[in-house]
């Protein structure tokens, strides 16, 4: 792997510091029901309407593993090029909190379902490999709501027991940009696999961020701080920048860094100490006696491998080789499954080069403006492909196409119909164009004389006038040719 050319370093006086970052990403497993109960996981339901006896930890209730969630975790492990552990163990992580009904979280401590793997990032300076330490399954807690009543806290258990995958990276990340690329890559892989929707607004993807700093060139790791539960990539980046600078300032000041858990205040853009190492919980992990060790066969894993779709890295390779896309274009188009599917649908019946430009350019800009995902695009792949063909066959100019595109964004209409209805068809009949051009020259006799006497810059003026008179419909190439002859 080539080294990232644009190194992220923090400079102080004579010293340069490198930032070392490791992420614990909590990804909600895409699943109809919870990890150990049959309750629904649907987002946005009324509080406490998706709570089973097991989720509320009533006496005598027992967890039963949701096999689908196990499959999802294994698929994710395969997507992360990771070792699948045929035997894993669920442990209890014991602590008291009002939104933790059992008084413990069922998690995997010593024996996770997925072991070491790796993820490749496309950075401006080249590719970068990030190691995956492990992936384990665990239950989410409920939600405490403190602001509904001055004296009481309300608890919503809808999330209680929802399956999460905790994906722990090695401390291989070195900058906020790499963190951005890493989280996006993880999300992309999981969305391809259908194992996590990656929706950060709904809390489907959050991360604990471990940050330490060290002098450039040093091999030793510095003391790290863990920033808990950051729920957007932007906040992760802000938190890292603040935290790294805070640590560097301490070191420059001759102070040491305390290993502690911190939280990121998004309003003040700063991290604050939550608890020190000494105050760390003793979770008293031990194997959950209500659950037998989870054992999966080679056969089970092999069958799941057959269900793995083409993942972003392979797809990118294919796009570059087969469609001659640039690595940049391919990276953008494979970033999520919907985009690449859309692209492949468009180019089924239209020009690849034009399609690539239109999707990455016009379509993304328009979607961005309306804050829409590609899956919600008002323009279907079929109609975009028709639009591109209209350009390709000269029915409309690129400029007119933009007008047609705007109409299409208002509702998925066939571009041919728009062209017909609005009379936007390109004028390519030489006789009609000649008449048009004759009129323009006639109306601008003085300028025509100036042109002939050597003021060649005026050519553009005449083109503009012709386009104006034709309401943009004149075929620009023909206009050029005819104008040259006539003038």
């Amino acid at each position: 792997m080539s080294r990232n050319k644009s190194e992220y370093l923090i400079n102080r006086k004579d010293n340069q510091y490198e930032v070392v970052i490791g992420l614990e990403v909590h990804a909600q497993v895409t699943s109809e029901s919870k990890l150990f109960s049959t309750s629904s996981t649907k987002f946005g339901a009324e509080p406490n309407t998706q709570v089973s006896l097991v989720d509320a930890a009533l006496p005598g209730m027992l967890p039963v593993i949701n096999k689908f969630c196990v499959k999802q975790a294994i698929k994710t492990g395969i997507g992360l090029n990771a070792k699948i552990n045929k035997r894993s163990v669920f442990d209890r992580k014991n602590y008291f909190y009002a939104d933790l009904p059992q008084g413990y979280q069922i998690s995997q401590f010593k024996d996770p379902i997925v072991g070491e793997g790796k993820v490749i990032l496309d950075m401006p300076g080249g590719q970068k490999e990030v190691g995956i330490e492990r992936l384990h399954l665990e239950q989410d807690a409920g939600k405490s709501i403190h602001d509904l009543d001055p004296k009481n806290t309300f608890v919503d258990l809808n999330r209680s027991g929802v399956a999460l995958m905790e994906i722990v990276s090695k401390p291989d990340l070195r900058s906020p940009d790499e963190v951005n690329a890493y989280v996006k890559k993880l999300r992309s892989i999981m969305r391809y696999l259908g194992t996590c929707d990656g929706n950060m607004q709904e809390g489907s993807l959050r991360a604990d961020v471990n940050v330490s700093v060290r002098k450039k060139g040093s091999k030793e790791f510095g003391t790290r701080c863990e920033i808990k539960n950051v729920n957007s990539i932007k906040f992760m980046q802000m938190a890292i920048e603040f935290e790294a600078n805070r640590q560097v300032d301490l070191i420059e000041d001759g102070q040491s860094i305390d290993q502690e858990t911190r939280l990121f205040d998004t309003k003040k853009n700063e991290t604050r100490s939550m608890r020190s190492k000494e105050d760390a919980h003793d979770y008293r992990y031990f194997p959950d006696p209500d659950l037998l060790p989870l054992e999966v066969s080679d056969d089970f894993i092999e069958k799941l491998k057959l269900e793995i779709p083409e993942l972003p890295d392979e797809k990118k390779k294919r796009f570059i080789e087969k469609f001659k896309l640039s690595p940049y274009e391919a990276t953008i188009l494979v970033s999520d499954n919907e985009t690449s599917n859309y692209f492949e649908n468009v180019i089924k019946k239209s020009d690849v080069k034009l399609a690539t430009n239109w999707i990455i350019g016009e379509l993304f800009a328009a979607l961005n403006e309306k804050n829409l995902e590609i899956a919600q695009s008002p323009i279907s792949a079929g109609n975009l492909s028709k639009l591109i063909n209209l350009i390709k066959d000269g029915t409309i100019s690129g400029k007119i196409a933009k007008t047609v595109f705007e109409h299409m964004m208002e509702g998925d209409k066939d571009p041919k119909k728009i062209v017909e209805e609005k009379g936007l068809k390109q004028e390519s009949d030489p006789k009609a164009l000649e008449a048009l051009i004759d009129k323009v020259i006639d109306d601008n006799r003085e300028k025509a004389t100036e042109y002939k006497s050597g003021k060649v810059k005026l050519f553009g003026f005449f083109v503009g006038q012709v386009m104006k008179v034709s309401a943009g419909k004149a075929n620009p190439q023909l206009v050029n040719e005819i104008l040259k002859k006539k003038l």
Partner: protein
Amino acid sequence: MSDITKQSLSELIKNIKDKKLSSTEVTKAFVERSEKSKELNVYVTEDFSAAIDKAKKFDKNPNLDLKLPGIPIAVKDLFCTKNVKTTAGSKILNNFTPTYESTVTQNIWDEGAILLGKLNCDEFAMGSSNETSFFGCVQNPIDKDLVPGGSSGGSSSAVAAQLTPITIGTDTGGSIRQPASFTGIVGLKPTYGSCSRYGIVAFASSLDQAGPMAQNVRDCALLLEVISSYDEKDSTSIDFKRNNYVKELTNNIKGKKIGIPKEYRVDGMPKEIEDLWKKGIDYVKDCGAAIIDISLPHTNYALPTYYIVAPAEASSNLARYDGVKYGFRADGENLIDMYEKTRSEGFGAEVQRRIMIGTYVLSSGYYDAYYLKAQKVRKLIKNDFDEAYKKVDAILTPSTPSSAFKIGEKTNDPVSMYLNDIFTVPVNLSGLPGISIPAGHDTNGYPLGLQIIGKAFDEQNLLNIAYAMEEKINFKNKITDWWIK
């Protein structure tokens, strides 16, 4: 029939099937006797009028093909019963009424039985004398001021006093077999994974197992047949072929090899227990079985292992009783204060002691030395049995190191209380089935029990040996009805 309550379960079923008795008559008889027996304090919750209503309903359209047709049964208050208060003998669940039914009790009702009420037990099944119950200790019908054993003390006392024809208890370290032994009845702890734990208030998940407590081996076999079932709702439930235990019950145990473990001859064991064991060996020989001396070398470590594993699991299992969702809640200044007050006031001393032990042995820095070590020793104890079962079909031991003791006698000496479980605990640690059958009396006339330990899932063999011995022993419980005025 004035002697309804004296009849065994099998006799009652026969009489109901032959239409000599109605469910209503039977239910009323047990209700009436229970009403007269309040001094024994066996019931936490009585459900008598509902029981009589259900019996009447049963009699209107009796389904006599069921295994427990219209039979009234009281159950240990550790089983969650739908719409009937379930306390686990604790203040912290004193106001708790489940909206669901445990699998084991559901199996019983599905065979036509009727709930009489919920029986007293040690708080969260932690105790060997029923004295830790929030609802007070239970009297042993054998003699006034005598403990009925524990934790299924209400259950043992109720069967011995004929307040229910049969019952179910739970056994984590001896909680069925020890009280059965103290009250002169039969108690069986099935192989771990036989009976679903779904809906049973958990004490120590890897050890807890429900089982029948009965007046005789046949009744015991019948109830086991009903309650033993594979249940997808319990991940530790095991899907194995279950016998038709009653149909296959036989007293022919000729040629069976019975092991006598030398390590069970503990120091200071009373002579009467030693004698009982010898008598047991003679009975087995009389039945045509062979006696083989065996060794279970890690027996000495069973009790300390148990008192690490069980409290560790309990400390975590009982974390859910925090005053937030259900059960007792004390007011507090804040969340932590509320937790502390709720759990200090809601749990009794023995439960708190075990939560503290369990929390300690799981703590970082102690985990390896205690919990992990205990798990390793547990494996060795199980290996001992596996080795022994290469040579023998079952193992014969005393059920307890003494007969029932007086209420209050061991309250302040937890270690001496824990020693009661010395013969029963290895069976739970190994997941094996064990049965206690009444086999004799001490000098006071108090009952003494013998324990037979079987191979995993070999309950049929275990029951057969018990059945053959029962015939030879011909035990008669000495109950004088002293509490009925």
